[in-house]
């Protein structure tokens, strides 16, 4: 599954951190071939066919894995995704172990720009015999067409396992640029003989401006004929600003060729998040206040020593904004109704577009902010 997923990290923890099934160094390869019906939000439903090769090297404490997905839709459009992950555990420190993880992924879909991300995380695990808990930060970046946004977050989880299955609960909070969201997930896994069933139920909350959503899926893996397994998955998943996937519902069925049968993967459609021309720290965030019937442009740039602005209303001459309390800088002359183009510079840095306003190409190789005063 080419999405960043706390549960994937936890699955690794369950396998290796607890040491329940000591892992000898080994290489595993697999190939999924599946047919799907997908309905991404904002799109009509569509059939799709996918091929997902995977390769992993596992030692007692370290795992390196790669996975790709090539997905072709009814329309002939295709998406291509790839993900590399690496994780290693420290030696046991009593009941504690430290885990370091890194992952890098990229995706593209016809009609959209390429999307890539890189994340690193540290986790402190507390381990019991049949249970465990962990917590830690993650940090990285998301890139889209030459512009980037920082990604940061924190996640925590707890799990229990018994001979026939496991139950995991995960909470995570992730910020990507100016987008932030929290997820709570419960995941259960059960197996009997050649059948493995896995289900997820999750909720996304605290999304600035985006509302909340619930999601979940159920997957079945039924092994037969040696390395061949039947896979089936259905459910709904939320958008992921890190990997660029959009929300959707899906049903997938296919065959897996693998000496082992890890949890089924689902198709995703990579759609890039919008380009960010500047981070808040580089150019601040713009808002508009009303004063005497005019609009006053306010740039919030905490810690800045100087904030300058140039635009249609300054004759494109740089002018200093007046500092105010709490890092708010104002362009004192009010603006009447109209559509204005402008750029902002913080502490002598590059001219950029602050967050909070629309942007457009400026015909001179850069970007310009567009402010509409009703």
């Amino acid at each position, binding site marked *: 599954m080419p999405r960043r997923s706390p549960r994937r990290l936890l699955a690794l923890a369950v396998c290796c951190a607890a040491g329940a099934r000591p892992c000898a160094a080994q290489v595993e390869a697999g190939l999924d071939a599946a047919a799907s019906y*997908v309905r*991404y*939000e*904002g*799109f*009509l*439903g*569509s059939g*799709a066919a996918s091929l997902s090769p995977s390769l992993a090297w596992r030692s007692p404490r370290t795992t390196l894995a790669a996975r790709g997905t090539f997905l072709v*839709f*009814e*329309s002939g*459009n295709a998406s291509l995704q790839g993900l590399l992950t690496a994780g290693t555990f420290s030696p046991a420190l009593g009941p504690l172990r430290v885990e370091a993880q890194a992952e890098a992924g990229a995706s593209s*879909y016809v009609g959209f720009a390429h999307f890539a991300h890189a994340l690193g995380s540290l986790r402190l695990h507390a381990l019991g015999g049949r249970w465990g808990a962990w917590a830690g930060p993650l940090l990285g970046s998301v890139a889209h067409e030459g512009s980037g946004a920082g990604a940061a977050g924190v996640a925590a989880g707890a799990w229990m396992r018994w001979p026939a299955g496991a139950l995991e609960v995960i909470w995570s909070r992730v910020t990507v*640029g*100016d*987008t932030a*969201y929290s997820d709570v997930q419960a995941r259960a896994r059960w197996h009997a003989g050649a059948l493995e069933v896995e289900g997820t139920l999750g909720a996304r909350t605290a*999304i*600035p*401006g*985006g509302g909340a959503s619930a999601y979940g899926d159920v997957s079945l893996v039924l092994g037969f004929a040696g390395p061949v397994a039947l896979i089936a998955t259905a459910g709904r998943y939320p*958008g*992921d*600003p890190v990997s*660029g*996937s*959009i*929300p959707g519902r899906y049903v997938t069925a296919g065959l897996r060729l693998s000496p082992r049968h890890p949890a089924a993967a689902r198709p995703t*459609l990579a*759609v890039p*998040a*919008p380009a960010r021309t500047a981070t808040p720290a580089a150019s601040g965030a713009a808002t508009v206040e009303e004063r005497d019937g005019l609009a006053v442009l306010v740039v919030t740039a905490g810690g800045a020593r100087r904030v300058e602005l*140039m635009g*249609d209303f300054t*004759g*494109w*001459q*740089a002018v200093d904004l007046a500092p105010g309390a709490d890092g708010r800088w104002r362009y004192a002359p009010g603006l009447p*109704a*109209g*559509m204005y*183009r402008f750029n902002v510079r913080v502490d002598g840095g590059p*001219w950029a577009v602050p967050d909070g306003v*629309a*942007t*457009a190409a*400026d*015909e*001179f*190789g*850069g970007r*310009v902010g*567009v402010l*509409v005063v*009703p």
Partner: protein
Amino acid sequence: MNARLLGVALVLAAARPATAVAQVERLAGRVDDATRAAVAAVVDSAREAGVPAEPLVNKALEGASKGADGARIVAAVHALAGDLGRARSALGPGASPAELVAGGAAVRAGVRGAVLEELRARYPRESLMVPLAVMADLVARGVPADTAARSVLVLMREGVRDAELVAFRQSVERDIALGAPAGGAAAVRLDGALPGTTSTTPAAPRKP
């Protein structure tokens, strides 16, 4: 510049209205003489089509401040004059400069002139600056031009105000930032803004 061209420039300058002259004078010391003369010629030509000088001169000043060379500045001004001219043709002679600027941005973004004509025909006395600016912004965010145009038209038909149009645009932008496809975000937000009017969804979703 030889004497003949200088003479032509002087004649054009003499025929230029005082406001246009004042606008072009803002370029003094900001661009070289050749660029200034070329921009002045574009301004004169555009003025005959009813296009105001100020946005054209602002564009030249923007280029100058960003270190663009003269050729690029003139090309940008010329392109803007074309956009403003098309907006002028569609919005009519009574269009305000602010409407023309927003209309020019919409045209540049890909909104068809027929949409501007329809807006003006339906709302001959209202300012269309905000609706046109919202269209331009939505398209800049990746919303298909026809979807953006029809979204705004539907909302206006329902009587929404300028501030609500701006809020609609912001909602769509937030959804896109969260990973929603641009066209889908506009359709969903339009449905949300028009309870019970799902049949007015402006653009049918497509297959991925």
